[in-house]
């Protein structure tokens, strides 16, 4: 319980820091703290696998991607750190209305959930057992039996993302090793010399 409130404070403060930070690098650091606190909350919800995935995928992969892009762009863009931060006038009422709508939806959902009968608690394996709720074995069994199709679609989504990124940001010219390129240049020069000699 203390853990939840401590992590909630960390989560909210780091989220505010991410949004208000002056430079994107600071935002990444705030996001790192956010994800770490979130992973701790996931563990407290006995979602072991998701907690580990949160650290590996988010902190390890996505944040590193952000850092690489910041490092890549900062060299060419002088004013990258201080972007203008205008707020359209419509944003305040829109955000307020959205918060009210979300709160309403959430509480309506809570009422709906309360009306559903509870599952029997007898079938629950104890926490810490090999097949306990949220353990890797439990998650993996669900992922590879009942929810196999979503898992396969996941692979497809990632493949589309990889191909899309290569198409968008990749260099369109085919890759040629340096030595081979040099040989091609030499060959062309030699041919040019021969051609000029004939004339």
């Amino acid at each position, binding site marked *: 319980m203390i853990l939840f409130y401590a992590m909630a404070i960390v989560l909210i403060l780091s989220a505010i820091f991410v949004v208000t930070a002056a430079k994107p690098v600071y935002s990444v650091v705030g996001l790192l703290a956010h994800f770490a606190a979130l992973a701790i909350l996931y563990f407290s919800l006995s979602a072991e696998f998701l907690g580990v995935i949160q650290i590996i995928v988010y902190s390890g992969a*996505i944040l590193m991607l952000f850092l690489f892009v910041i490092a890549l*762009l900062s060299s060419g863009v002088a*004013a990258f750190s201080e*972007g203008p931060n205008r707020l359209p006038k419509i944003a305040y009422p829109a955000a307020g209305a*959205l918060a009210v709508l979300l709160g309403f939806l959430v509480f309506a959902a809570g009422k709906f959930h309360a009306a559903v009968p*509870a599952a029997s608690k007898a079938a629950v394996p104890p926490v810490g057992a090999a097949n306990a709720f949220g353990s890797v074995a439990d998650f993996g069994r669900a992922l590879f039996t009942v929810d196999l199709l979503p898992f396969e679609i996941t692979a497809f989504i990632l493949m589309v993302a990889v191909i899309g*990124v290569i198409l968008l940001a990749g260099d369109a010219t085919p890759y040629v090793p340096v030595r081979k390129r040099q040989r091609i240049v030499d060959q062309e020069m030699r041919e040019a010399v021969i051609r000029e000699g004939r004339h």
Partner: protein
Amino acid sequence: MPHADLLPVAIGNYIGLSLVIFCIGIAGVLLRRNPLIMLMSIELMWNAANLLFLAFSRAWLNNAGHIFAFLVITVAAAEAAIGLAIVVIVFRNAQNVDVDEVALLKG
């Protein structure tokens, strides 16, 4: 609430926390004009949704929420990769980073 005693705190606390983080993310997307910070705010929103998935999953002792959270993480990773690729190609030769100046498709 089903299995309310299985959660560390009542489910309403998770709902409130998730709501607050989600609204901070919305504020980030609306307020900031730096594309990278906007993308990070979107990540905040993904994670707020994920937290709620896992909290309800725990409350119901049903790991469907875990599968959903797994899918959300995958889609978030794909979105981050493609979003960052777009940021790179749009701002590769720019002197200033402001998403309001990107209006090529505005018609």
